[in-house]
């Protein structure tokens, strides 16, 4: 649990992000997304609306997708967090990322990290989703560039290629 630091309105928290352990001090009001971006320097998670609609800031907290703009960093104390930086390994893209590249599922790339993590969560529970199930899953992530079709195709292709890992 978050521990109050000496005499100030801050808390100490511990969090594992993309497999790395952190022990940090934060104000209770600091959003998880600001903590990840500004305090840990993980700027791959993007801020689109700060009111939970657009999904650009989606990260996984203990395996579940979360809008990092609607969660406080202190609420993620003790959690394991995955951001887009945790998908590629040693410079090798994750199969979902490869599929997004192959099927032109991104243009400006701003929604992409949130889309990837939403898709990652979907493939954990549904190994061969139909297009309708994919559309349902990503309906909470706005994309203003692609019209979504290529994203649906890419997620389906990643699933077929066994992109769950």
């Amino acid at each position, binding site marked *: 649990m978050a521990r109050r630091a000496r005499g100030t309105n801050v808390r100490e928290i511990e969090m594992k992000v993309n497999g790395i352990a952190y022990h940090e001090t934060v104000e209770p009001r600091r959003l998880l997304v600001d903590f990840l971006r500004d305090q840990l320097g993980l700027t791959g998670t993007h801020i689109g609306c700060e009111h939970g609609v657009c999904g650009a800031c989606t990260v996984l907290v203990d395996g579940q997708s979360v809008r990092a703009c609607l969660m406080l960093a202190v609420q993620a104390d003790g959690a394991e967090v995955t951001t887009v*930086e945790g998908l590629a390994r040693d410079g090798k893209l994750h199969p979902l990322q490869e599929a997004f590249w192959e099927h032109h599922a991104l243009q*400006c790339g701003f929604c992409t990290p949130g889309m990837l993590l939403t898709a990652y969560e979907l493939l954990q529970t549904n190994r061969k989703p139909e297009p309708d199930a994919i559309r349902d899953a990503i309906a909470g992530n706005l994309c203003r560039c692609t019209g979504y079709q290529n994203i649906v195709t890419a997620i389906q292709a990643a699933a077929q290629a066994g992109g769950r890992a």
Partner: protein
Amino acid sequence: MADTPRRKWVGKSIRRLEDPKLLAGEARYIDDVHESGMLHAAVLRSPYAHARIKRIDTSRAKALPGVVAVVTGKEAAVLAGPVPAFCAEPVVQHAIAIEKVRFAGEAVAAVAAVDRYVAEDAIDLIEVEWEPLAVVSDVESALRPGGPLVHENLGTNLVFGRTLTFGDVKGDFARADRVVRRRLRWPRVAAVPLETAGAVAKYERTSRRMTVWANTNMYHYSAMPFAGTLKVDPNKFSIVPVAVGGSFGSKHLLSKVITIAGILSKASGRPVKFMEDRIDNLAASDSHASDRSYGAELAVTADGRFLSLRIDVVDDYGAYFQFGQTSHGNYLSQVTGPYTIGSVEITLKAVLTNKCQQMVYRGAGSEVNNWVLEALVDTAARQLGMSPVDVRRKNLIRPEQFPYKIPTGNYYDSGNYAGVLDLALRMVDLDRWRQEQARLRAAGRYIGIGLATCQQRSVYSATEFWFWYEKPGFPVTATPEGVTVRIGQSGQFTVSLNSPFWGNSPETVVAQVLAEEFGIDPSTVSVLYEDSLRALPAAGPGGSRLTVMLAGAVTGASRKLKDKIFRIAAHLLEASPQDLVLADGKVSVAGVPQRGLTLADIAANAHFFKMSLPAELETGLDASHTYDHPFTTPPSADRSDLGAFYPIVAHAAHVPVVEIDIDTGLVKFLDYVAVHDCGTMMNPAALDGQIAGGIAQGIGTALYEEFVYDSEGQLRTASLLDYLLPTAAEVPSIRIGHQETPSPYTPYGLKGSGEGGRMVAPAAVANAVQDALAPLGVEVSELPITPDRIVRWVREAQARR
């Protein structure tokens, strides 16, 4: 086509060079820029649409620990002048309002603090005493004599009005058998990219140098005016591009975002980041788009020929006028669509109200005119008892008529519009859908098949910014795009771009062109983005120009490089340059491939072995080339002929099929076919992506999106819960077809295509809904076609019967 040149890389759907960094979270967007000592800004915004600032007290905000600078409008005006604008005379505006505010959300004060949280705390501590004024909430109240004025010094809210006439409009209307009339209402929408606008400004007080990182564009045009606004010498003021999370026209200028960051950096002596939050962006981004009321008339003959077009348009510009009449100059390039219409008259009234001001949004006003024209065409078909297909066929410009000059003076370069229409109808299987529509109608279901056949002008010329004015203040005529191509010591290619990445594919385009020209692997090309002080002239993405213009710039640079390469190779091979051929990254004597040199050999000589070069050549292997508009001519003084200003013209036919539940007003897509002719395609996959994305935005405009202001000038749709962007649940799969009619004026015959989807979709979707509801007597005259509107229209139509 038999005579199409064989190309290896132009026309190939290679994977984009841009993508790996975007996928991995490595791209650097504006909010990822961090300078040491950097402060964060927040802005106090007006709660009133129209009010005088009687008193403003920032002392409590200044006293808050962590706050470094607080500036009011008056204080800001010492550090910076009015913000840059395009042809915006006679409306002056400041980044932070001085004395009075003119829309809800206008900046009143700005704070720089150690972080955004503290900056927002400080905003809450600023006290303002307001004197609310009567609100100009709509066009009617704006034009009422004796009513309140948005800018008192103008003496009117009608900031601009003019009629332009092209050809014998009076005569053509007198000759017509019938005049088709519509009154139409296009809603205020905006690009709403996923990333808001932002800037980091770093002012070095002793050297008086300012560096600005921003997700803007056009810094070849705008850096100098920004330097003037922020009172920095132009050669010490630099704009650095960053990756941009979508723009669609909304981020061309960012005059206030950049200026506010600059003011706060001057005030604090520290780098300052200002990021709009989403509420800032929706209410005060200065990037709302067209908000128009139309009276439109099409003069036709009894057998369905179009003679003349008369358009009366009133545009609610909001509180300022930063882009002048650009969005009305834009559509004059294609105002008569793909049809042979002999004359046209436009009357424009630009009106100021207490709302956020306009910028451009994908289509830049031409998508609005496409909707107006296609509504008239379908209405003409209904009134004449013709089918929408037949009435179009009768009026489409024929392939042998190109280049075709339209009444306004612009040219269409090439096209085969009937071919596009035929392919679209084949793909959708129109006959089958008409049968299905009749069958389901009998079962009480409402199916609509929409058709829109529209132009997509591309590659703008700057004259559209100013030709509405009788005496333009700054009649710019350059729309350049420069690149520098460097072949390094090992023979590898690096390209410097002078425009930002906006979500399109500039890196992929230049790599494909270099691959085509030199036979290299495009994935090996490295691309850099230059800041404004290092940059060659460039206008950047906009007006569907970038692919064409980059191709022109890179082929130009390639010619210069090849000339040097051939001269070096000829010297080393003891051959004549004209006997040499370049293929697959190798220069060899024609017919004797073993007598050759790789580009790496030649590059090494060019960089390291001066004595191996012909005496007249200098060391190195690089070339810059600035390509300007391929075909533009000046407007006539009386503006009866606007000249060629948007002559690279793509074309598309869209056929959406919808089903409407008349009890709930829900619109469901059963199919959507889009056929585009964008000339020679550079990268078909990227093109399809642009088309599908544009259609999604067009569906948003047609069915969901609208900025709603109430009578007090308050924005009622100021969050993404209320301003509805289409999601994956609403946007259907689009079936896309292509025809390729090359442009005679551009490299490889390319045409621009970035706006095509949104150019056509609102018209096509509106016509589909109209087709579905026509049996009920409903007339679709207003967008967006929301469920509540459909239900209301159906009830009203039923009550009339």
